[in-house]
């Protein structure tokens, strides 16, 4: 009988192939046992307001348990080799999913789980065929497109009703980020606020032993920076300043040098007249690129950078081919970790970025911390369940639950992706921990900060015999001379530039933004590798012609509001 149905479905598809993609939101599961919610979710009302209404005032409990339990569908990108779970656990059954089930009666099933580097294609096919799960994370461009077309649920009321106080506090700690989840006045997505502004900028990291050996000071200017790099090459032939092929992200290994020139590629900044302009095409970039091109020609950067991804750069670093790297606050946990572990003297330590003149007052580029939005399928039966999951995550994160032994070795990013962190958490943790490390008074350390503090203290006290893998990483991040101590003054003085477009990509720009970004990356890469600097002018022209100008108008219209 089943086959009969399949055949029928096929012939319907022949006739209606086009329209079907518009209205069939989900194929019923085929082989696996159909769960209760999946069976009903397709037949539920499409009116979002009707869903929350019947529960009534008295029953609204942001942490309420579903009885009988419900099942939600989602999607997931992972790196399979690192999705390591304790015995018998897997991505759909681990300490966290059990916690969700016990506290909320929620089970999350994944429509698909694929490797991170293949996820983009998978996501594109999912959107193109409009087969959306109950909830998922969408990047800015996709989020905008979905919201503009009213393709995901308006959660304005839902959020107000169901979000816990803690979640609301988190969101209000970074209002701009939270607001970017609103499109046309409706709340379509819960912005993932990330780790806060302090975690965004890249700074300079230098290998401690090499610096000592060179007898030089940490560079304050770009000239000194070049001199140090050359000195390193004398002492260690073949060594380079690390550079990655990916110039795509808002912040990358070139950003600090760009920032020294007042150039901010990758983000939209406010010009003197108060309008928004795209950092990619500003003349300062050209000046900076010229400098970088010269440095590249001088052999300061890795000749092969255009094919090196993060992994390769890390391998080089571990192999002792890198003396300086312009990187983010947490590389002590991974990229330079092996070095420090084997020889604490060979550790990398963070410094302020080199400037054009030593006393320049520069801005650091922070990009935009919100990369994704949690959106909810319009046809979902229990939309509030997603918000409840976030509530529960916030509660346990603050309580330090995830540092319990049973969570050891698991990783929250392999858990159901309805999560939210306090965007000021890193800053506050840094303040408390660095202070306690200096004074030895740990009374301010909260339950959630405790493991961080313990780790960092271990490195401070006994770096040669540490057992905790995160000791060095935490110390050079949150310690008194750590990465955050370099960045915190910029935060305090409001000298970190966020992307003024705030991730809310306007629809016409969304269509061309990826193309324009690719054009940018190609041009920058080419120029660095020796193409005539005039290529930049051509790029600016092309950029404008290909929709950049329209986008600027569009963005400013939106900004003016």
């Amino acid at each position: 009988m089943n086959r009969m149905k399949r055949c029928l479905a096929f012939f319907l598809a022949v006739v209606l192939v086009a329209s079907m993609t518009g209205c069939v939101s989900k194929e019923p599961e085929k082989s696996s046992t159909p769960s209760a919610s999946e069976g009903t979710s397709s037949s539920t009302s499409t009116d979002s307001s009707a869903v929350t209404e019947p529960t009534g005032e008295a029953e609204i409990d942001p942490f309420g348990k579903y009885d009988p339990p419900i099942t939600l569908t989602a999607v997931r990108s992972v790196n399979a080799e690192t999705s390591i779970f304790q015995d018998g656990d897997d991505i759909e059954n681990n300490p966290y999913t059990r916690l969700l089930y016990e506290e909320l009666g929620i089970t999350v099933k994944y429509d698909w789980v694929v490797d991170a580097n293949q996820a983009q294609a998978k996501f594109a096919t999912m959107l193109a065929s409009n087969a959306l799960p109950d909830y998922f994370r969408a990047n800015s461009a996709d989020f905008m497109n979905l919201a503009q077309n009213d393709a995901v649920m308006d959660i304005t009321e839902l959020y107000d009703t169901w979000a816990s106080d803690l979640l609301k506090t988190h969101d209000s700690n970074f209002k701009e980020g939270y607001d970017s989840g609103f499109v046309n006045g409706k709340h379509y997505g819960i912005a993932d606020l990330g780790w806060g502004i302090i975690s965004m900028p890249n700074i300079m990291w230098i290998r401690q032993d090499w610096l000592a050996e060179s007898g030089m000071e940490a560079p304050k200017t770009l000239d000194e920076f070049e001199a140090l790099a050359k000195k390193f090459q004398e002492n260690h032939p073949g060594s380079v300043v690390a550079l990655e092929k990916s110039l795509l992200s808002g912040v990358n290994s070139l950003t600090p040098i760009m920032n020294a020139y007042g150039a901010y590629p990758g983000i939209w900044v406010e010009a003197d007249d108060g309008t928004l302009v795209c950092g990619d095409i500003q003349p300062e970039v050209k000046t900076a690129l010229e400098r970088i091109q010269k440095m590249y020609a001088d052999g300061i950067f890795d000749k092969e950078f255009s094919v090196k991804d993060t992994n390769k750069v890390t391998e080089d670093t571990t192999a002792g081919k890198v003396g300086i790297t312009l990187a983010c606050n947490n590389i002590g946990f991974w990229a330079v970790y092996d070095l420090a572990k084997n020889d604490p003297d060979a550790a990398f330590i963070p410094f302020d970025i080199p400037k054009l003149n030593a006393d320049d007052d520069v801005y650091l580029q922070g990009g935009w911390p919100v990369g994704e939005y949690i959106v909810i399928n319009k046809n979902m039966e229990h939309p509030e369940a997603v918000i409840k999951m976030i509530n529960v995550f916030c509660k346990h994160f603050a309580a330090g639950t995830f540092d319990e032994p049973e969570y050891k070795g698991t990783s929250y990013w392999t858990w159901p992706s309805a999560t939210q962190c306090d965007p000021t958490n890193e800053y506050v943790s840094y303040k408390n921990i660095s202070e306690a490390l200096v004074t030895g008074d740990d009374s301010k350390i909260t339950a959630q900060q405790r493991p961080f503090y313990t780790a960092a203290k271990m490195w401070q006290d006994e770096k040669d015999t540490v057992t905790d893998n995160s000791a060095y990483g935490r110390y050079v991040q949150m310690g008194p001379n750590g990465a955050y101590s370099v960045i915190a003054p910029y935060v305090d003085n409001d000298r970190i530039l966020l992307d003024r477009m705030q991730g809310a990509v306007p629809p016409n720009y969304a269509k061309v933004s990826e193309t324009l970004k690719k054009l940018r990356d190609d041009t920058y890469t080419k120029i660095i590798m020796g193409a005539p600097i005039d290529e930049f002018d051509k790029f600016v022209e092309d950029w404008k012609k290909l929709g950049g100008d329209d986008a600027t108008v569009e963005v400013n219209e939106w900004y003016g509001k």
Partner: protein
Amino acid sequence: MKKMSKGRLVFEIFNYIILISAALTCLLPFVNLLAVSLSNRSAVAAGEVLFWPVDLDLSAYEFILHSNRFIRSFLISLQRVALGVAINIVVIILTAYPLSKSSKDFKSRTVYSWFFIFTMLFVPSMIPSFIVVQNLGLIDTIWALVLPGALPIFNMVVMLNFFRNLPKELEEAALIDGAGHWTILWRIFVPLSTPSIATITLFCIVNHWNAWFDGMIYMNRPENYPLQSYLQSIVVTPESIMQVMNPTDEMARLLLSLSNQTARAAQLFVATIPVLVAYPFLQKYFTTGLVMGSVKG
């Protein structure tokens, strides 16, 4: 035999040198791969490994044995080959036989031919193909890997030409004896076509074993990936995993330590074995089958 002239001798020597170096360029990369997979990681990173393992180290193969993903994907690929090739051969034979008839004997042949030629020329784009496969409910099943390519036109043409070159008298005699087309096909044509069938079998095996793109698009879980799709995910490393998913610090480190060259080499090497094992068995039919199929006699 006459004694070789001097020029001839020089030619022969050069000829051997050229041919042997060509053979070496084909062989040595795999020897290198094998040597890397058997060497110590740091020796590999230092570029010391050439054609012989340095500091023999079997940990890469231990990694494979403990890597559920590699083994699962390997088995899925085997399954795919078995199912996919069986379907291929049946559909190819059934399609090639009628089309091998002359238009005189089989009037509609021209129309049918054009129908199939067209499919060879126009390749549908990814998104619509995906939507069709999805609406059929094939996503994340092995059928998504074997049905869309069930009729490889090129192989069908090879088969068709082979059928066409079989002596007409056989068929005519059978027809006079009152045999139908089914009988002629299964009793006469198929048994006579062993070389050709062996050849297209080899092609189909290779096709299915080597396909990766469909697995990446149509499968929903890494556990269901065929081998080559899995290998693609380790060979072509992510642009930057760090940016994709804010990994916790410890995990990121683990991730980096696992993606090492020796493990990769070992996996690639093991993945080549089945094809290398398959072809000697089919090789003896291979040339006759292909040449007779591609050239009209």
